[in-house]
């Protein structure tokens, strides 16, 4: 049973990891806590729902949903954050408040458009379960793990292997110098928001089909926990987010094992506060990146 809880923890943890890399992606480029990420994820999942229902083919529907979510994310940046960046005297808290505002707008738009009730979502990867000893693997768990790993690998490649990734890292390090070196910072930032939107949509889709359930507040609790995971791993560091997600997921399930279901939600927030107090830059974060 303990082992089973660990396995459960890993699969939940990878879901958190998937969401928390979204936070890290934007933080990595802009040093900004994208508090609107969870609701972008929700919007993405709902795009998937509506477009799949529109019946013009499953894969085209998902691809359109991905692009649309990416555009929502870009819209957020271009219409709300970019003007703040231009304005002198704007700082992290201004940006944070804007993100909180956008988060509320998106979340409540979702409520207005799609209704607050829970709706069914198709499970696209259910192939039964697999028992190894006393531990049961659910096929959806395995698929979600695999997909999460593929996406994380792809993101890692984008950031460390591709040219635009180099640009992203350069913008993070020194926006002005990147500009002078010929990096089009606007394009880089827009691209970052676009792929963070796509990641959000993928995460939303995976989560909705894993639980076969979709509803506007799906991102709220998830966002908070994933955020704690990102802070734990050192926000802005991709592999840190993954490991942070796994730690939060596993500790949560272990806590249920020892203390029962009621304490589960506390785990992530205890971790969050402890990390902020003890190691504000997180496990893998470089302290130079996080001026606390």
């Amino acid at each position, binding site marked *: 049973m303990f082992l089973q809880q660990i396995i459960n923890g890993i699969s939940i943890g990878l879901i958190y990891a998937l969401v928390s890399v979204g936070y890290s992606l934007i933080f990595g480029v802009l040093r900004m806590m994208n508090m609107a990420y969870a609701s972008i994820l929700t919007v993405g999942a709902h795009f998937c729902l509506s477009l799949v229902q529109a019946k013009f083919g499953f894969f085209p529907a998902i691809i359109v949903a991905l692009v649309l979510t990416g555009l929502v994310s870009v819209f957020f940046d271009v219409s709300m954050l970019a003007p703040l960046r231009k304005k002198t005297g704007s700082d992290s*808290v201004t940006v944070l*408040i804007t993100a909180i*505002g956008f988060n509320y707008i998106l979340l409540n738009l979702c409520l207005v458009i799609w209704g607050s009730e829970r709706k069914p979502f198709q499970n696209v990867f259910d192939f039964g379960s697999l028992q190894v000893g006393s531990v049961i693997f659910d096929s959806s768990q395995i698929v979600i793990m695999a997909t999460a790993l593929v996406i994380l690998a792809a993101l890692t490649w984008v950031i460390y292997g591709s040219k635009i990734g180099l640009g992203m890292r350069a913008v993070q390090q020194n926006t002005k110098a990147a500009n002078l070196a010929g990096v089009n910072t606007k394009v880089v930032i827009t691209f970052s928001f676009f792929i963070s939107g796509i990641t959000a949509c993928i995460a939303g889709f995976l989560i909705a089909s894993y639980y076969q359930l979709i509803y506007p507040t799906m991102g709220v609790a998830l966002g908070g926990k994933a955020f704690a995971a990102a802070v734990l791993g050192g926000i802005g560091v991709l592999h840190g987010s993954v490991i942070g997600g796994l730690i939060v997921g596993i500790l949560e399930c272990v806590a249920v094992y020892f203390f029962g279901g009621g304490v589960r939600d506390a785990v992530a927030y205890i971790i969050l506060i402890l990390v902020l107090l003890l190691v504000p830059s997180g496990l893998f974060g470089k302290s130079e990146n996080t001026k606390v």
Partner: protein
Amino acid sequence: MKNFDIKLLEGLEKSKYIVGAAVALLVISLPFFGASQYLLRVATNIGIYAILALSLNLITGYAGQVSLGHAAFMAIGAYAFIVFTTKYPIGFFPAMGVGILFSALAGLILGAPTLRLSGAYFVIATTGFSELVKVIALNWKSVTNGATGIRNIIRPTVFGIELTNANGGQYWFMLFWLAVSIYICYAIKYSKFGRALFAIRDDDLAAKMAGINTSLTKVTAFVFSAALAGVAGVLYATMTRYVEPNTFTMDISTIILCIVIFGGMGSMVGMLISTFLLIAFPEALRALAMYRFIIYGLILIIMVRFRQQGLISGVSKLPYKLPKGVYIDRG
């Protein structure tokens, strides 16, 4: 001509007081105008949020720290008050004192270590704290009664009359505390302590150089702020008469922040007007209640972008400045 100008100004200055007094009189006598029970309730609610906004303003507007965990202090105040009224029959007012004390204590415990975090990190820490308080309230059943919550919370009795919503007592009770809160905030604003706070908001380092113990000042402000939130929590509990862990949500914290930003940080009159507008509007437009948080969201974005000094800059002579935090762009 010049004389006339001065007279006019003096007149304006005087009329400010007259208008103020008239508004105060009107507000106090609201229950006599046959205001319905519902209207009184809305008014009481506005008052409670006004106290909360003043409270958040102490740390956001004066000290420059943004907290998204104010609902947690409300919760702590309310729960402590309730537990003491139900478990130890010490009477309403002592229990209220205990509630406020516990809130202040929580402010100290949270404030001392986290106030050194700046900007966004502080926001996140307070958010986490708020969630944590909720989980504790849910699980500590022997004290908080868990998810079942606590009902029929006692109401204050003054001169043998129980203050209910129907007889306007709750409303006046709230007004009393609102007046106390306003007084406290004014006292702080014009004290040495208040000036130290402004100094910190404007430039933390310079304040330090000037010999201000910045962390002590900030923590003190936080304790005051938490205590005021505790007052609001107790008022809320006596008005609704039912408290459960989900009563004090992030939504409340967000609304408070919204009020403070809409009203203009640091401005007290702005705070009151903005509370009135933001709390009364969803009640007035119930059909638009669905869009309530969309509008709050827009307010946050628009105010931060276009009008950081708040709604009524004419009244607020203190343009507010957001705290310095993790920088965004060096370009």
